[in-house]
C-alpha cells in the first residue's frame, strides 16, 4: 500500500455545491475552511470561558489563558515598547490563530491550515498592510525615509532600491517560513509512516524492522510540537519587529 505523502495537503470541498461566486469563481466550503472555523471557534470559546470566572487563584484553564496573554504582552513589550501594546489584540489574535492551527494540525487525520501558502500569505499580507498603514498614519510621508539608510549620497539611489526590495521581501519570507516548516514536518511524518507500512507488509525479518521508523515518528512528532509553537512565536515576534520599525522610524539603527 503506497500512499502519497502530499495527499494530506489536498483541499477537498466538503459540500458538493459552491456556496457562492466571486468574480466567476466558485467558492466551496472545503476541509480547510472547516478547520479554520474550528480553530477560530475553539480558541475564541476557550479563551472566553477560561477567563470568565475571574478567580484570584486561577484554575488550570484560566492560568493557561493568562500565561498566553502575558507571553504575548511580553513579546510585544520587548520588541516594540509601550507603544506597541496598542497592537496587542492584533498580535495576540495572530499568535493564537497560528498556534492553534499548528496544534490542531497535529491530530492524526486532521488538516494543517498553516501548511497552505494561501493562508500564510494572507496572514503575512495583513501584517504588512497594518505596518504600512500605521507607518503612514504616524509619520505621514516621512515614513518613506524607512528606505533611506545613512550612506554617502552617491550610492543612496542604489541602496534605496535595495532597501525597497528588502521591504517587499517581508511578506514572502514571513509566510514562506511558516508554510515551509509545517509542510516539511508533516511530509516527513507521512514519509516515515509510509516506511512503517511497506516494511510491515514486506514480511519476515523486515516486518520486525518496521519498529525503527515507528520510533522515529514518535521523536519527529515531539519535534513537530516544538516547531508548531516556535513558528507561531517567530510569526508573532517578527510582526512586532516590523511594527516597531513603523512606530519608531530609525530608532534602532
Amino acid at each position, binding site marked *: 500500500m503506497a500512499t502519497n505523502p502530499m495527499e494530506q495537503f489536498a483541499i477537498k470541498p466538503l459540500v458538493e455545491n459552491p456556496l457562492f461566486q466571486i468574480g466567476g469563481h466558485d467558492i466551496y466550503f472545503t476541509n480547510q475552511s472547516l478547520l479554520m472555523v474550528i480553530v477560530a471557534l475553539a480558541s475564541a470559546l476557550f479563551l472566553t470561558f477560561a477567563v470568565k470566572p475571574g478567580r484570584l487563584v486561577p484554575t488550570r484553564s484560566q492560568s493557561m489563558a493568562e500565561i498566553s496573554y502575558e507571553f504575548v504582552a511580553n513579546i510585544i513589550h*520587548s520588541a516594540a515598547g509601550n507603544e506597541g501594546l496598542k497592537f496587542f489584540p492584533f498580535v495576540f489574535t495572530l499568535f493564537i490563530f497560528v498556534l492553534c492551527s499548528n496544534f490542531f494540525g497535529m491530530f492524526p487525520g486532521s488538516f494543517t491550515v498553516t501548511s497552505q501558502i494561501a493562508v500564510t500569505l494572507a496572514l503575512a499580507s495583513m501584517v504588512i498592510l497594518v505596518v504600512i498603514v500605521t507607518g503612514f498614519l504616524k509619520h505621514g510621508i516621512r515614513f518613506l525615509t524607512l528606505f533611506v539608510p545613512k550612506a554617502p549620497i552617491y550610492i543612496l539611489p*542604489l541602496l534605496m532600491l535595495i532597501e525597497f*526590495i528588502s521591504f517587499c*521581501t517581508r511578506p*514572502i519570507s514571513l509566510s514562506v517560513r511558516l508554510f515551509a516548516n509545517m509542510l516539511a514536518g508533516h511530509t516527513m511524518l507521512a514519509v516515515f509512516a509510509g516506511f512503517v507500512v511497506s516494511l510491515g507488509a514486506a514480511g519476515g525479518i523486515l516486518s520486525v524492522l518496521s519498529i525503527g521508523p515507528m520510533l522515529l515518528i514518535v521523536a519527529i512528532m515531539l519535534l513537530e510540537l516544538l516547531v508548531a509553537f516556535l513558528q507561531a512565536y*517567530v510569526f508573532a515576534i517578527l510582526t512586532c519587529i516590523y511594527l516597531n520599525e513603523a512606530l519608531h522610524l530609525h530608532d534602532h539603527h
Partner: protein
Amino acid sequence: MTAPDPDRLNDLGRRVDEAKKRQAAGAKRPPPTQMGIAGRFATELVASVVVGGGLGWGIDWLFGHFGFPTRPVFMIVFFMLGSAAGIRNVMRTATEINTEIAAGAAKTDEEK
C-alpha cells in the same frame, strides 16, 4: 480566620518584588534552535532573490505593454539587486540573532 503572620507577609512581598524585577528584565524567550536559524537565513536569501526577479519581470512586462521591449534588462538588474537585498537581510537577521543570543547569555549569567 487567624491573623496573618507578618514574617510570611514580608516574605511574600519580597518574592513579589523579585518576580516584578525579573519580569522587567525582559520576556522569557525560547532560545533559537540551529534549524530555526538556518531556516531563517535560507528563506530571507531566497525570498529576496525571488522578489527582486519578480519585480524586474513585472517592470519589463509593464514596459512591454506600453511598447518598449526592455525584456530582459530590468529582470536581470532587479535579480542582482534582489541578491544584494538578500545579503542585506541575512546580515540584519544575523545581528538580530546575535543580540538575542547575547541577551540570553547575559540573563543566564545573572541567574548564576
